[in-house]
C-alpha cells in the first residue's frame, strides 16, 4: 500500500524556522545547507529514534514543526558540536537543537535535567545537588582536617573559603563534596605545591549548570551571573574551572551569551594551568614509575573544553601533561582526536536525561575508540566524560580504567593519598604511595 505523501510548506510559514532565523546569528542560516550529510555521518546520535542531524535540519527547513515538537531525539543529541565542526557551511546545528529543546514545555522536559536546574536555582551556591553554603564549608573543613591529621607532610595544606583578594576563584562540581569528597584533595595538593593563591566561595561555588542543558536561558544566565559576581566580589583575577567540561563551557559561553560583566576577571580552564606549571618547573610529575611497567594511557578530549571553546591548544596541553606523567612512549592517542574527537555521550545533560539505553548506544563509538588504543587507562579531565566512559567500561565489560587528570598528576608526583585512589586499577593502587600511608581494604 502506498503511503499518503505529507504536504509541507517548505518552511515558508514555519514558526520554528522563523524563530531560528530571527533569534540565532547568521551561522545558523538553514538555507545554506547543502544536504551533504557530513553532519549525520559523523554523529554518534545518528540512528537513535530514527533521527540524525541532517534529517533534523531538513525537517526544520521544510517547516515540519509538528513532527519536531517534543521530539525525544533533542535530548539524545549531546550538543557536542561535531556536526558544526565538520559542516562546510558552518550551520550551527547544535544551536538549533538548543532551541528545539525549548519547544518542550518546561515542566515536561526530562525530570532529572529539570530537577538539577531547579535545585541549583534554590540555593545561592549554584549546586545542582542542593548542597548548602554551610554544608559545603563544613565538608571542605572536615576533609582538610582529616588530611592534615592522617597524611604526614600535609599539616599545612589549605582549602580556603571566601578568601578575599585570592588570585584564583576555584569552581567545584557538587559531585565531589556530595558523594566522593576525597577526590577534592589531589587538586588541593597540586595547588599547594605550585603555591597558587586560590579560594572557594560559599556563594556560587557550584560549577555545574543543568539550566544550560535544559535550554532555560533565564536560569542559565542567573547561575552564571551569580558565580561570576561572587568571584568579582572577592576580588579574584582568574575564574578557574576545575576538571568539569560543561561547567567550563557554561560559564565561558554564558558570560558571552548574556554579556555578563567580567571586568578584571579571566575565565580559564585548568588543563593549560597544569601544563604551564609543569613548564615553569613548579610542578614536577615524574614518569619513572612507568619505565618498566609500560602501562598505556589514552585520553578523551572533552567536547566542552576542546572543540566547543578552547580548541586544540588545550588538547595539546592535555597530552603534554599526561605524557610527562606516564612517559611519552606510554601514551596512545585515540583516532580521531583533538577537535575532531567523538563525544563520549556524557554531555548535553545525558546523565540526567533518563535516556539511559540511548546514552549507552551513543557511547559505542567511544568505547571502540578506547579499545582500539589497547590502553589500560583513559584520562578524562571532565566529570561527565568520566562518568560516561566509566559506565561504558562496566556495560560493555571492558578492562580499561577511567581516571581524572588530577589523580594522575598527584600519583606521578608521589602525593596521591591512600584514600584518593578509588579509580586506579589494582596495578597502580599500591604504587607510588606516600610515606606513612597504607592502602585500606576495598569497599
Amino acid at each position, binding site marked *: 500500500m502506498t503511503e499518503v505523501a505529507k504536504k509541507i510548506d517548505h518552511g515558508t510559514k514555519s514558526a520554528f524556522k522563523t524563530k531560528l532565523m530571527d533569534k540565532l546569528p547568521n551561522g545558523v542560516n538553514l538555507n545554506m545547507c547543502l544536504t551533504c550529510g557530513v553532519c549525520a555521518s559523523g554523529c554518534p546520535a545518528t540512528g537513535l529514534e530514527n533521527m540524525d542531524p541532517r534529517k533534523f535540519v531538513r525537517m526544520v527547513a521544510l517547516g515540519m514543526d509538528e513532527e519536531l515538537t517534543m521530539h525525544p531525539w533533542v535530548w539524545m543529541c549531546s550538543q557536542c558540536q561535531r556536526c558544526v565542526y565538520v559542516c562546510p557551511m558552518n550551520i550551527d546545528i547544535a544551536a538549533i537543537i538548543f532551541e528545539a529543546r525549548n519547544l518542550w514545555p518546561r515542566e515536561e522536559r526530562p525530570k*532529572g535535567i529539570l530537577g538539577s536546574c531547579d535545585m541549583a536555582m534554590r540555593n545561592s551556591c549554584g549546586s545542582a545537588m542542593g*548542597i548548602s553554603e554551610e554544608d559545603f564549608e*563544613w565538608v571542605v573543613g572536615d576533609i582538610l582536617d582529616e588530611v592534615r591529621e592522617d597524611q604526614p607532610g600535609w599539616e599545612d595544606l589549605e582549602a580556603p573559603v571566601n578568601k578575599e583578594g585570592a588570585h584564583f576563584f576555584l569552581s567545584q562540581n*557538587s*559531585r565531589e563534596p556530595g558523594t566522593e569528597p576525597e577526590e577534592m584533595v589531589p587538586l588541593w595538593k597540586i595547588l599547594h605545591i605550585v603555591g597558587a593563591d586560590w579560594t572557594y566561595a560559599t556563594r556560587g561555588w557550584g560549577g*555545574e549548570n*543543568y539550566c544550560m542543558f535544559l535550554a532555560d536561558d533565564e536560569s542559565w544566565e542567573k547561575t552564571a551571573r551569580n558565580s561570576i559576581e561572587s568571584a568579582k566580589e572577592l576580588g579574584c583575577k582568574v575564574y578557574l574551572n576545575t576538571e568539569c567540561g560543561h561547567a567550563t563551557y557554561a560559564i565561558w559561553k554564558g558570560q558571552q551569551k548574556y554579556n555578563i560583566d567580567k571586568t578584571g576577571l579571566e575565565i580559564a580552564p585548568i588543563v593549560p594551568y597544569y601544563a604551564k606549571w609543569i613548564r615553569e618547573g613548579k610542578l614536577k610529575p615524574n614518569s619513572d614509575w612507568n619505565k618498566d611497567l609500560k602501562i598505556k594511557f589514552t585520553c578523551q578530549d572533552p567536547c566542552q573544553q576542546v572543540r566547543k571553546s578552547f580548541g586544540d591548544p588545550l588538547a595539546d596541553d592535555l597530552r603534554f601533561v599526561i605524557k610527562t606523567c606516564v612517559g611519552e612512549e606510554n601514551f596512545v592517542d585515540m583516532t580521531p582526536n583533538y577537535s575532531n574527537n567523538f563525544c563520549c555521550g556524557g554531555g548535553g545533560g545525558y546523565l540526567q536525561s533518563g535516556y539511559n539505553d540511548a546514552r549507552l548506544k551513543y557511547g559505542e563509538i567511544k568505547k571502540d575508540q578506547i579499545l582500539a588504543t589497547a590502553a589500560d587507562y583513559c584520562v578524562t579531565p571532565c566529570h561527565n566524560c568520566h*562518568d560516561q566512559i566509566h559506565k561504558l567500561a562496566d556495560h560493555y565489560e571492558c578492562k580499561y580504567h577511567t581516571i581524572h587528570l588530577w589523580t594522575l598528576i598527584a600519583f606521578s608526583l608521589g602525593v596521591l593519598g591512600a584514600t584518593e585512589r578509588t579509580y586506579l586499577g589494582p596495578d597502580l593502587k599500591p604504587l607510588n604511595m606516600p610515606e606513612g600511608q597504607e592502602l585500606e581494604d576495598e569497599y
Partner: protein
Amino acid sequence: MATLEFNGKTFEIDEDGFLLDYNMYNEEWVKYVQTQEGIDEMTDEHWKLVEVLQDYYEKNGIAPMVRVLSKLTKFKLKHIYELFPSGPGKGACKMAGLPKPTGCV
C-alpha cells in the same frame, strides 16, 4: 518511567529504579530493594540508615552528603558499603524511597 510489581504491590519507578513518589515507600518496597541489594536480613544498622535518610530528606528535601550521612549515623563510608553493596545512593537512598539525586551523578 516504568511500573514495577513486587509481592502484589505496584510501584512507579524512574529509569534508574528509584521510586517516583516518596509517599509510595512501604514495607514491600524495602523487601524489593533488599533482594536487589542481596541483603539476607535487615539489621538495626540497615534500618538506622533508612531512618536517618528519610528524616534528613523530609527536613531538607535532598539526600545528605555522604560525609553528613557518616556523621549522623556514626558509620564509616566503608561500613555503609558493607551494609548496602551499591553504596549510599544507589542502595540506601533507593531503599529509603528517596528520588535519584540531581546533578552529575
